[in-house]
């Protein structure tokens, strides 16, 4: 019971990507703004990818790795802002295609980029309750994106993919501090997805709410956790990362609030030391919605110096808005556990798109969650984008009478 937390973590971030400089140049936007966005590449979905395929592609390696222990998964919770049906959950398809036990609950949750962390906290309560010793819970944050030229400078930092998080009593990745959390939530219309083909975002309001929630969530954490100190309690920090520039602004703000006589040099050095490792993958992928924090956590584990046990502070924010700061411990097993999924290697092997290929593919992304009654996907159309080296991929084949049919390719 005392090692409850994240047992396994895997990321699926598509098989294609475009460089941000190329994207901005193709759109006729200012390439110099990269300094502000601090983004290198963004993942791009292909026409046979949807929230279900992303979830299955992220979770299948974990299910394969744990073998018979998959029978112990008693709950699958899918967190998504890319639902495909008002009633039937994404989780029903995911449960089927991961071949999970019938003795398993499944459901879908939604609260923009926060819901995966909300689901994680509810799942921790279930595990700590002792009502089902040995139980495992699979949480998958999965999304697609609806951006195109309308998003302007937000387009390069919008990612594509899913994070699969297996919780249980043998936390190899992150042992979560029991009861150590701070919350800050209130209603605000900063961004929303009112239809299956359009996002609306009020950039200023959203940045403001994010920064406000970071400070207030941490203050609440401090009230609950005796002796918590922003500068000294955490060896590393991982945050929901809409783009690295915002993470930097949030860090600057909270350091000024929390640390006496905090100069620019200290802020910069602290940012590089405690947040730098968490930004490598987000800069290569873009914002993964509620999976974004877990992409940042994976990045921190793979890129931090040394293997010694270290307390990490984690911040999740979802527009609308609900947010949470919590903490846990990564140790020597964390990197070894992540290694088997080779996240860096798979990001590296993504097909690099030029701007015209990218622009042509965007229209497929815009159709990914439209509830078509019938639709056929021609997989051959995407043959040229397949990386030469890739594991089997889970793909949407067709939609018949609103039912989605998938296959491994």
């Amino acid at each position, binding site marked *: 019971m005392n090692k409850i937390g994240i047992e396994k973590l895997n990321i699926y971030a598509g098989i294609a990507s475009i460089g941000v400089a190329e994207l901005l140049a193709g759109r006729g936007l200012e390439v110099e703004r990269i300094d502000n966005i601090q983004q290198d590449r963004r993942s791009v979905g292909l026409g046979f990818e949807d929230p279900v395929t992303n979830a299955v592609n992220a979770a299948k390696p974990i299910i394969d790795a744990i073998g018979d222990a998959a029978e112990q998964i008693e709950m699958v919770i899918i967190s998504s802002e890319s639902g495909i049906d008002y009633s039937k959950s994404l989780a029903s398809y995911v449960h089927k295609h991961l071949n999970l036990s019938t003795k398993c609950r499944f459901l879908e949750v939604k609260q923009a980029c926060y819901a995966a962390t909300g689901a994680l906290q509810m799942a921790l309560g279930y595990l700590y309750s002792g009502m089902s010793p040995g139980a495992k819970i699979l949480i998958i944050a999965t999304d697609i994106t609806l951006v195109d030229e309308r998003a302007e400078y937000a387009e390069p930092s919008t990612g594509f993919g899913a994070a699969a998080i297996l919780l249980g009593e043998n936390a190899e990745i992150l042992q979560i501090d029991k009861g150590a959390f701070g919350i800050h939530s209130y209603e605000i219309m900063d961004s929303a997805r009112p239809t299956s083909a359009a996002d609306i975002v009020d950039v*200023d309001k959203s940045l*403001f709410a994010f920064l406000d929630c970071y400070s207030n969530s941490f203050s609440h954490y401090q009230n609950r956790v005796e002796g918590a100190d922003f500068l000294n309690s955490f060896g590393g920090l991982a945050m929901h990362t809409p783009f690295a520039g915002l993470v930097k602004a949030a860090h600057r703000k909270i350091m000024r609030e929390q640390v006496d006589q905090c100069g620019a040099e200290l802020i910069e050095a602290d940012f590089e030391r405690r947040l730098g490792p968490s930004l490598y993958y987000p800069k290569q992928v873009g914002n993964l919605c509620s999976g974004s924090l877990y992409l940042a956590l994976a990045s921190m584990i793979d890129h931090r110096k040394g293997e010694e046990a270290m307390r990490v502070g984690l911040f999740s924010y979802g527009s609308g808005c609900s947010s949470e700061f919590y903490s846990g411990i990564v140790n020597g097993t964390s990197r070894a556990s992540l290694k088997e999924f080779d996240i860096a290697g798979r990001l590296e092997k993504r097909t690099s798109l030029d701007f015209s290929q990218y622009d042509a593919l965007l229209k497929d992304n815009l159709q990914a969650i439209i509830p078509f009654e019938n639709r056929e996907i021609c997989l051959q159309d995407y043959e040229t984008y397949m990386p030469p080296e890739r594991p089997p991929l889970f793909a949407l084949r067709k939609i018949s009478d609103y039912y989605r049919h998938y296959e491994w390719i």
Partner: protein
Amino acid sequence: MSPFEQQAFQTIACNVVDLIPGLKPEQISIDGKLSDYGCNSIDRSDIVWKTLDDLSLDIPIVEFAQVSDIRSLTELMVRHLKEK
């Protein structure tokens, strides 16, 4: 300008100047927008937070929904300075 207006506007202007190289306080007009002075979305957040800090104000974020330019930002700050 009332003393409160002057205090709020000057604090905002100083924070813009601190952040954007090459600007002087007298170049900032209350009728302008922060974006007119080269402030991107992160700069705008920074300026607002710094100003709140300088004026020791704590304003609920929803109240910023009506802010569209430096004048409306100043007016919001003034309203809360008066309530202090």
